[in-house]
């Protein structure tokens, strides 16, 4: 084992060999067989399934976006709310919107007389 240097980018073969022996798991075949037996029970998402999942997400996003866009466009193009048509009594009872105009009209009528 060599003295390690702080920036040594080479593996230490002696240390590596000793560590490898220390961590040797043994019986690779049994492990592989065990994993493969369990892998047979795992459902692997295929490309189709992945794409289908993305497609579902895409469709949902498109629906949300189109609804939002429709709402915004509708709000922008719609005019002001329709005015409620006043009844005759409303007109008679309500004070004049522009009292000054009435006085001018009356004054001109009186003046002409």
């Amino acid at each position: 084992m060599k003295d390690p240097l702080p920036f040594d980018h080479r593996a230490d073969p002696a240390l590596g060999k000793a560590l490898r022996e220390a961590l040797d798991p043994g019986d690779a075949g049994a492990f592989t067989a065990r994993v493969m037996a369990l892998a047979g029970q795992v459902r692997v998402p295929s490309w189709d399934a992945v794409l289908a999942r993305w497609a579902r997400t895409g469709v949902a996003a498109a629906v949300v976006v189109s609804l939002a866009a429709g709402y915004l466009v509708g709000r922008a193009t719609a005019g002001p709310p329709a005015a409620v048509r006043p009844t005759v009594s409303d007109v008679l009872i309500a004070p004049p919107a522009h009292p000054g105009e009435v006085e001018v009209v009356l004054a001109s009528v009186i003046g002409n007389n």
Partner: protein
Amino acid sequence: MADLPSQPAQEVARIPQQDEAELVARAVAGERAAFGVLVERYAGVARRVARAVLGNPEDADDAAQDAMLSALVKLGQYDARRPFGPWLLRIVANAATDRRRRRSVRRVEPLDVGLTAGGPRPDTTAQRRALSERLRQALAQLPERRRMAVVLFDVEGYSHAEIAPILGIPEGTVRSEVFHARRRLRVLLADWKEGG
């Protein structure tokens, strides 16, 4: 297939990327034999890395197995432009770390003074076994990340740059972790160094 030995260390890290991308594509398409080849290739390194984290070989095998199956489920997410090994080993490292966190905390046995302060040279099988035990104990005293870094670097032959994404740390930190791990192991194995 099941009887084949796992790929030797150092060689696993050098498997052509194109070959592995093709194997992954075939595995995703449902060809279990292709996945089997990947398992064979990486079983050794996955189990060693898990054992470096967990210590206990049974726990390590469970973690490595979980990681392999998790990788199978996530194969569709693998970016074929990148090397497969680091992608898989990141899953292994996470699986081992998660298992270590989940399991009941085991007391770390203090190092045997007789083992750390000298002893016979590992000329015989028994002595080599003692050396391995000493190394495992020495590893157990290192921080988890440091353990994985030195195993990936010195045992498995990955570069600092390749280890960085596996451990999710900067390359400079990997360099530092490897350096400190080696220094610690060197101190604990000083007697073996003289003999070896």
